């Protein structure tokens, strides 16, 4: 059976909510995504993982509905899973298997024919640079190597919908850059949902950013737009230690460097925080903090 890919590839989330006991982990989330890379960004407990698990058919929602290519993720989970690649945030591997065996195992669970699976496994082992260790038991792997195996298993069925939850956790800077490049190269004719705490990852790879806070979407935009909105709200000021302490109490600080000249602060706010402060070029991290803090009012806006 083949599910042919068409131009209507779409994830539609409407009024999605998830409640654990009395606490809402996700509330009234509405999204519509086509091919591309969507970065889900937000602090711990924002509901990113809950949202991804619902879309990945691993969790049922309390309210609302989510559909992938018109297939309801709750009622037609098996059909959705045929086109899904998923890398959980926290996952384990079978220590008694080698990388090659583990990937063949997951390929079998994904229903990939044996011969094709073998070829695919070889390709992915090369992509994640695990060739020298491919026949070593997973029990002896470092965290970063396990993460690479996780990435490879998610790509085994060449998924149309790829969901990766904190994929760069445990990877060293060089590996992280490589992984971002890999993700970017996969974006055409495919939807990738990337959850991350690392703003640089989202900045480098995502074509769209969805900011979540306390289970709600507070901003659905692009990096460029978010940066534009932050313009004029990032300030650099070099002051003495006493003034620095006072400014820290009154403003959000996204950077602080102490030197012989004094303390250089990177401050966020719509008004000039100090007479010596000068406007600085915002980074995505500045823009993110402004959105999360709601100081500039960016957070209340939702782009189409």
């Amino acid at each position: 059976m083949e599910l042919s890919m068409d131009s209507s590839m779409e994830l539609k989330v409407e009024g999605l909510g998830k409640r654990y006991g009395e606490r809402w982990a996700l509330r009234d989330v509405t999204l519509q995504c086509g091919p591309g890379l969507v970065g889900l960004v937000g602090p711990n407990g924002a509901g990113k993982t809950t949202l991804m698990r619902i879309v990945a058919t691993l969790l049922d929602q309390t309210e609302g509905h989510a559909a992938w290519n018109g297939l309801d993720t709750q009622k037609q989970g098996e059909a959705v899973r045929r086109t899904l690649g998923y890398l959980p945030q926290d996952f384990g591997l079978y220590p008694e298997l080698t990388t090659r065996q583990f990937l063949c195992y997951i390929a079998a669970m994904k229903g990939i024919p044996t011969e094709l699976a073998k070829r695919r496994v070889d390709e992915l082992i090369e992509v994640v640079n695990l060739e020298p260790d491919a026949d070593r038991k997973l029990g002896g792997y470092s965290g970063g190597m396990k993460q690479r195996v996780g990435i490879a298993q998610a790509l085994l069925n060449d998924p149309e919908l790829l969901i990766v939850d904190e994929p760069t956790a445990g990877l060293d800077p060089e590996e992280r850059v490589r992984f971002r490049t890999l993700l970017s190269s996969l974006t055409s004719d495919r939807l990738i949902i990337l959850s991350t705490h690392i703003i640089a990852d989202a900045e480098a790879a995502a074509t769209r950013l969805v900011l979540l806070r306390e289970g709600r979407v507070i901003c659905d935009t692009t990096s460029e737009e978010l940066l534009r909105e932050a313009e004029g709200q990032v300030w650099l000021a070099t002051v003495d230690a006493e003034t620095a302490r006072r400014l820290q109490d009154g403003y959000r600080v996204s950077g602080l460097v102490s030197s012989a000249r004094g303390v250089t602060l990177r401050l966020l706010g719509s008004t000039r925080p100090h007479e010596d402060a000068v406007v600085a070029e915002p980074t995505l991290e500045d823009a993110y903090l402004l959105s999360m803090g709601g100081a500039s009012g960016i957070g209340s806006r939702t782009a189409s």
Partner: protein
Amino acid sequence: MGTTGTKSLNIANNGFGRRSDSADGRVLQHSTVMAGDARHALASVVGWELNRATSDWRSWLLVGAVFAGACLQAPLNSGHFDRDHLNFPIHSAFGLAVGYMQMLSIVFVAIGSSMVARDLSRRTHEVLMATPIPTWAYVWGRWLAGVLMCLGLSIVALLGIIAGGWVLQMAGARPAAYEMPDAVGLAIAFALIVPVDVFLLTGFSFTLGTLLPRWANLAIVAVVALWLVGMPVYAANYTDRANTWLPGHPFMLNAMGRYYLDALQDAQSSHASITFEQQVKLAYEVGTRMPDLSLWLWQLSYMGVGVVMVALTARYFSRFRYEL
């Protein structure tokens, strides 16, 4: 990790049939997605579980321990053979087999309860549940793999018992103290004993371990306690003891004991006078004789209970795990 610019993938021949994303054809491409083949799903789950088990050195350690323990059954028990111990068939191969099955029962329960529960404790559950493997294939496949592992261990135990008896006889230290059992008869008895044990015990423990994975260890204790303590109490109070013969169960030893004593009495009554040595010899001849298991064949129906338990598990198993 491979740099996408330097790692080359064989896009054209990867079998997924989708085009490359980049002009140089070096990045992972996407393809027309292959749907999972449900026909092979069950076989895949069973096959890979067995593959995993055989890849684990701890499995082989368990196999070795079971074999060694079984080998030692005959030598260890023959050393205690005297007038006071003639009244129980523990010295016979059949008695040894039944007795050893009690110990293996605990292993069966542990295997059954962990077949799915360990995916949660190892955090492999989410990765597996995100694949299109059908729920029924996952549940039934895991249980069937557990059943095959238990049956395999039982065969190892049987071979160990026969080997231990054979070595004891060949050693020649006490040639009269041990008669080689009828190996075919023993195998037949085993074939009746083991599947009922395995299906019943793995069925219950699998159900508890799968549906209540956080309580998997407690499930092992509960099922073992029920098996070794609860069932004899139930059988003694609510069933006809003469017909109560749960294979591999303490109660079977009693049933075997009664059968053995009756047979021994019959054999002895044909002799006017009998020496202790003759008595010993006679006891072993009786003990190694194939018991009449036909009366107990109906108990094979207990296997159905285990199957029903697994069917219920497959029905109520949820891929959603809130505690993940």
